[in-house]
């Protein structure tokens, strides 16, 4: 009886100790702010989803830390003519079940992204692809509908290669309960809102990861996320608000890694609404009214960089010589007077809450600055679900605060949806001439020519000021000091195959 009692006591003590959950040397724990929607890439619509896919799968190409697509499953590519691309595949790549990757898997996977039956959410990026043909076991050709200079970028975005035979045999629903890819980690298990457990792929073509297990946990509450890091339960946490960074930097077992983000924050101007906003001088005035530096310093604790044209160095086509609008309220008032609004005018300014870092606080500061030059701002904060319906339903009245990420690492990824066509759901400004130029740039294969085109387009957009340009985010990833080799990226991807403890 006593012995039994002792056993129970020891057992409980062990259980207790285990449950304290210190991430051991063989395990890396990541705490994100959101949960993966689905294990099927066709249902992915955000980088949170893709951060699971990038561990388990590979694509033909993938962005490096500077946003340039690098060969992964493809060894090289050749542009045969304006609409035909040929890819040579890496040999000897094995899926997690041992089968060898061949061209038919590539054809199947890309076909799936454009298949109208599958209705992939990112499918809109693949709409330029007409068809995929298998030339031989390790050669694939992709034919586009019209010249597509950023095909490699598209393939880098959610272009995960699936094992064709297995998916077809099991059916997508069964396959994605225990997905298999060629990636550095094998899928072990997933409990929604709890944790995803991945295991190192010892046969990874790029070299086996240096630790055994990767655990991805969604922890939505900031205080809890930081607590996980402080107690040693987590090795990497993302989405840490800037006001905590000062204290976190002081902690002995913590490293803070800042990285310039590809995400830019700005304010929509609805040029289809009131007359004042149709006037270029007014829009420029709005830009001169903003003290970007003070916003970055005081509200973001320095975690930002003033931005000129809504794209960043990560976007192909970016012109670094363009300097952001300066803070010049006197000039702003003068421009307003010249445009015929010496006493300002009224605007409605909408902002999300909690969607972007310190969004409503920054928007409030911007509203105050606009008030200071005479633009009377009716400031309204809304929940993102409501706001996105207003934005994409073309119901925005005057001004709206918004951010835009870096999906394609190309200028067209931002300018296309925003200024490419009047029908585009998120577009509140365009001119036929600009739309034309963007179309041309989108379909010009020559890199040098494209660069020149975008330089000109950016100058025009800067001058027309269809947005109140604000800043480029600086993301901060907080890791435990034990973690080595973790490189924070501006595209919010978390890569672990070079990481060790």
């Amino acid at each position, binding site marked *: 009886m006593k012995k039994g009692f002792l056993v129970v006591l020891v057992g409980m003590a062990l259980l207790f100790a285990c449950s304290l959950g210190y991430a051991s040397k063989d395990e890396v724990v990541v705490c994100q702010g959101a949960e993966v929607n689905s294990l099927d890439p066709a249902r992915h619509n955000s980088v949170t989803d893709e951060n699971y896919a990038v561990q388990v799968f590979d694509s033909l190409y993938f962005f490096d830390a500077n946003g340039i697509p690098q060969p992964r499953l493809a060894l090289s590519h050749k542009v045969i003519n304006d609409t035909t691309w040929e890819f040579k595949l890496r040999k000897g790549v094995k899926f997690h079940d041992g089968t060898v990757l061949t061209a038919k898997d590539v054809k199947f996977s890309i076909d799936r992204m454009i298949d109208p039956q599958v209705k992939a959410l990112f499918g809109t990026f693949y709409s330029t692809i007409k068809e995929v043909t298998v030339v031989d076991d390790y050669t694939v050709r992709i034919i586009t509908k019209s010249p597509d200079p950023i095909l490699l970028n598209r393939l880098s975005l959610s272009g995960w290669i699936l094992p064709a035979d297995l998916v077809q045999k099991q059916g997508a629903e069964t396959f994605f309960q225990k997905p298999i890819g060629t990636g550095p980690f094998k899928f072990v298990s997933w409990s929604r809102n709890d944790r995803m457990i991945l295991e190192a792929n010892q046969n990874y073509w790029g070299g086996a990861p240096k630790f055994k297990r990767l655990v991805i946990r969604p922890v939505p509450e*900031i*205080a809890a996320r930081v607590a996980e890091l402080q107690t040693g339960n987590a090795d990497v946490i993302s989405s840490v608000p800037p006001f905590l960074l000062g*204290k976190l930097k002081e902690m002995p077992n913590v490293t803070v890694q800042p990285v310039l983000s590809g995400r830019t924050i700005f304010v929509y101007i609805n040029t289809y609404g009131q007359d004042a906003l149709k006037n270029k001088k007014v829009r420029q005035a709005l830009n001169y009214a903003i003290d970007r530096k003070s916003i970055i310093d*005081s509200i973001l604790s320095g975690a930002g960089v003033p931005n000129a044209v809504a794209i960043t160095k990560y976007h192909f086509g970016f012109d670094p010589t363009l300097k952001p609008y300066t803070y010049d309220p006197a000039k702003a008032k003068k421009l307003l007077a010249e445009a015929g609004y010496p006493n300002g005018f009224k605007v409605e300014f909408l902002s999300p*809450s909690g969607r972007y870092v310190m969004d409503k606080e920054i928007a409030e500061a911007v509203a105050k600055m606009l008030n200071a030059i005479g633009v009377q701002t009716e400031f309204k*904060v*809304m*929940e993102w679900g409501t706001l996105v319906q207003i934005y994409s339903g073309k119901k925005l009245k005057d001004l709206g605060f918004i951010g835009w990420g870096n999906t394609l690492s190309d200028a067209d990824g931002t300018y296309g949806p925003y200024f490419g066509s009047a029908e585009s759901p998120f577009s509140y400004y365009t001119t036929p001439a600009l739309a034309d130029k963007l179309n041309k740039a989108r379909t010009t294969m020559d890199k040098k020519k494209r660069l020149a085109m975008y330089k000109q387009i950016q100058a025009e957009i800067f001058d027309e000021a269809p947005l109140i340009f604000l800043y480029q985010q600086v993301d901060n990833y907080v890791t435990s000091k034990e973690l080595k080799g973790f490189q924070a990226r501006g595209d919010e991807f978390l890569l672990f195959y070079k990481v060790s403890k």
Partner: protein
Amino acid sequence: MAGKNSTDNETRKAEQKIKFRMLIRRIPKIPAAIILLLFISSVSAQWIAPHDPTAQTLLDALKPPVWLKGGSASYILGTDALGRDVLSRIIYGSRVSVIVGFAGVLLSAFVGTLLGMIAGYSGGKIDSVIMRFTDMMLSMPYILIAMAIIAAIGPSLTNIIIALALCNWVGYTRIIRFESMKLSTAEFVDMAVISGSGRFRNLFVHILPNVLNTVLVLATLDVGKMIIFEAALSFLGLGVQPPTVTWGGLCADGRSNLSFGWWIATFPGIAIVMTCLAGNLIGDWLRDELDPRHQLRT
């Protein structure tokens, strides 16, 4: 002795006036003082607050309260991450708390009492329908319903009051219905029916004044609940939005900073607690005062 069942309205009204005055004299002092402070602060916020509640000053960010190291006398309760004065924000926040608390309670009490009276007095089919409807509302998780409603109509102050009331009226209906049922069999009501006065007139002239005591007790206890509810909605991002300042919003905003800037969320939290405490103590005291058995004990 002329008691509650007296058919002489005049005498009853005079008695009630005297009882009311004696009641006020016996009100518990500290809770009443807190509620009074609340009202004064909300009405005179712009005069008594030391700073503009939305003024951001980088240099003064995250200052601790004056009695701690690093604190300053110009920010008695410290500042938040943007350098805004916590005390001023609490003072301005009392405005919305007062409005939300009292308007929310008023609306829920009104709806709940009306339905309860109609149910209890009418009986039969109408009672059944109202009761089933009450059961429906009672069984649905109120947070989700409030969230869904606000997600639909937007988080303005009015909408939040409506949403709070929609989730809270059931607390009145059952109890008021019970009281109304008892009253509908009382002597004086029977006499009114016999003398031919209409049903609705009966409801308002005879039933309502007699359930008002219960309503008052319930309402006082509910004020704190409304403020807490608004805090929960702010936590979920669906409370009253900036630049309007509310205690719930302050508490919710400051929660990420509880380890390094505990004062930002804690002092608004204390304000909420004090108001709830005051409301509850007064409500309890009222219940004891208005309870007929209490008369026997004293």
